[in-house]
């Protein structure tokens, strides 16, 4: 929120005697003052009977008009524009935070009502109306994500090894690097359709199985793993490799014993973030795995429930009365959010705790 003009832009001050060379400027704490004034104004408009949104908007409007005008009269138009941009940029950031705060708040407040032992230990089998839980969906999400990880991590890590250790800068590695980047942009639903189209060839129309979902998610996860692991392998100092070669260690043992352990923390972080990304995917699972009310531990046979699809389905076809189903959707969303946030936290912790000291 600081709007302090940096000392460099206030001109040379205090050089010699004579008439001051210092240009007139607003008080130093204008930034803080502006922020406080904006909050007070918003509260004032609120007290006058406006809703929260119009009150905040009006306060913002007043600040955006008054501060530049004040600045123009004291410091001239250039500084005024600078202050205006500072306010705009700062408020853009504040605005971007609004959805995050609101999502967190609504998910927690709406989801908390269904939390309880039952919610985690019951499936939706034979449940109409109230009750039931996400036991089946948690298992589905865990199993499918596990299968995805088992497929994606080796492919991703080996590709990264190829890009950094073997490919150097040849043409194939250039293409792989570029297409992996392009692959990160594949729409999740297209990955789902691909997995469906692939499995239809082997299992016939209408195929639904957890493994197909895992394949779809792997298409989305592999590029993320490749990119993050590649970045980490590049950070391994070349001296380590050379020292190992100098001792006569073959290249593959150098990679396994020197390069990978050095980059391990980064690799774990990257993989965790990649899991966090795919665990919330809805569309591909909706197509390939479908919806189920019962527990299914076999990812090679039949429909499974997963947390995101469960949330989607509970809100999309809630049945009657809709209330309990919508509550369960929020509950599943809350559990999903907690899982994703925990994974993000773990990733940051791993990279923080295990990264080489002094490099952070």
């Amino acid at each position, binding site marked *: 929120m600081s709007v302090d003009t940096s000392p460099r832009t206030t001109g040379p001050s205090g050089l010699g005697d004579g008439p001051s060379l210092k240009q007139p400027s607003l008080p130093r704490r204008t930034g803080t003052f502006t922020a406080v004034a904006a909050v007070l104004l918003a509260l004032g408009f609120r007290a006058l009977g406006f809703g929260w949104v119009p009150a905040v908007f009006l306060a913002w409007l007043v600040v955006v008009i008054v501060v530049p005008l004040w600045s123009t009269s004291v410091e001239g138009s250039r500084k005024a524009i600078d202050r205006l941009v500072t306010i705009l940029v700062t408020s853009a950031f504040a605005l971007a935070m609004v959805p995050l705060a609101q999502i967190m708040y609504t998910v927690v407040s709406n989801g908390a009502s269904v939390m309880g032992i039952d919610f985690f230990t019951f499936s939706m089998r034979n449940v109409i109306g109230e009750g039931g839980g996400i036991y089946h969906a948690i298992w589905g999400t865990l199993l499918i994500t596990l299968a995805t990880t088992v497929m994606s991590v080796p492919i991703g890590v080996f590709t990264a090894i190829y890009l950094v250790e073997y490919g150097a800068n040849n043409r194939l590695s250039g293409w792989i690097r570029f297409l992996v980047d392009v692959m990160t942009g594949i729409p*999740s639903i297209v990955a789902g*359709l691909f997995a469906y189209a692939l499995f239809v060839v082997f299992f016939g129309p209408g195929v639904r199985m957890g493994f197909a979902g895992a394949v779809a998610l792997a298409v989305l996860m592999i590029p993320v793993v490749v990119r993050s692991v590649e970045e980490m392998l590049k950070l391994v100092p070349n001296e380590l490799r050379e020292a190992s070669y100098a001792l006569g260690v073959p290249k593959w043992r150098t990679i396994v014993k020197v390069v990978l352990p050095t980059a391990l923390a980064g690799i774990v972080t990257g993989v965790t973030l990649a899991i966090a990304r795919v665990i919330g995917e809805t*569309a591909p699972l909706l197509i390939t795995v479908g919806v189920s009310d019962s527990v299914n531990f076999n990812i090679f046979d039949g429909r499974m429930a997963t947390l995101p699809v469960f949330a989607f389905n509970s809100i999309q076809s809630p049945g009657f009365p809709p209330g309990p189903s919508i509550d369960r959707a929020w509950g599943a969303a809350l559990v999903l959010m907690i899982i994703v946030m925990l994974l993000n936290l773990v990733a940051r912790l791993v990279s923080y705790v295990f990264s080489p000291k002094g490099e952070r």
Partner: protein
Amino acid sequence: MSQTTSKSERPVVRRGDRIFAGISTGAGILILVILAGVAVFLTIQGIPGIAAAPDEVKSGTSFARFVGPLVFGTLYAALVALIIALPLAIAVALFISHYAPRRVAQVLGYLIDLLAAVPSVVYGLWGREVLAGQLVPAYRWLDENLGFLPFFAGPFSATGRTFFTAGVVLAVMILPIITAITREIFLQTPRLHEEAALALGATRWEMIRMTVLPYARSGIVGGAMLGLGRALGETMAVAMVLSASGVVTFNLISSTNPSTIPANIALQFKESSGLTINALIASGLVLFIITFAVNFAARWVVNRRREFSGAN
């Protein structure tokens, strides 16, 4: 990096080395195969859907007529999202790279990244159950005061589940990716350029306008296109917020809305069978081609920039 083995004498190629190199190269090639596989399998399964007669599929029309309105809806939704998100994302990226105190900038960056971590189904829930209701007064106002514009022709939707709401949700979802790319490139601006501008007496904004923005122009374009690609393929926000009827209209605030390709697939897939599924897969192929082209172009723009900046 790998050319450290001496070339003067023939290096001994051990079996372990050969196997390991083979596995690594194989994994790299496998990725190319997967990408090709996506295109091939979508084509194989999609062609019957494209060729299907109107009475064989649920839409009851030819494929072109079925997919046309969906393509329009997809492009329109992505465009609305981009128009909302791009200025905001650039401002946020500038805030993090050049305005926020350095010590908190990293934490603020994490906060924005957190926005990217929120699962899409949660965004959908939020858009449908919370945001839609809150935007209704705005739609009423737009309908009453700007109703002469085709975008706000109304009648406004009383539930707020409109195309504009979906666009806002999409905008929030693509904001973090555009911010991440542009922030990265703003930070690559040569320090000397910035300091030279400041030394000439430029204010902070003048410095940004003269050094950071020109330097980052192609990065901004690339980031915007990546965001566009993400918005084109995003399913849940549209599927959950809209009750789409598949019309073609520019009206943003009414309750009859265009649908998008991914949302249509997600909503129709469960109840479809036979050639209708093939038609849906074919529409997925169309989406794949569009997003692939957009992403290809975007990465090309971003990477070209990267080569430049490496020299600094």
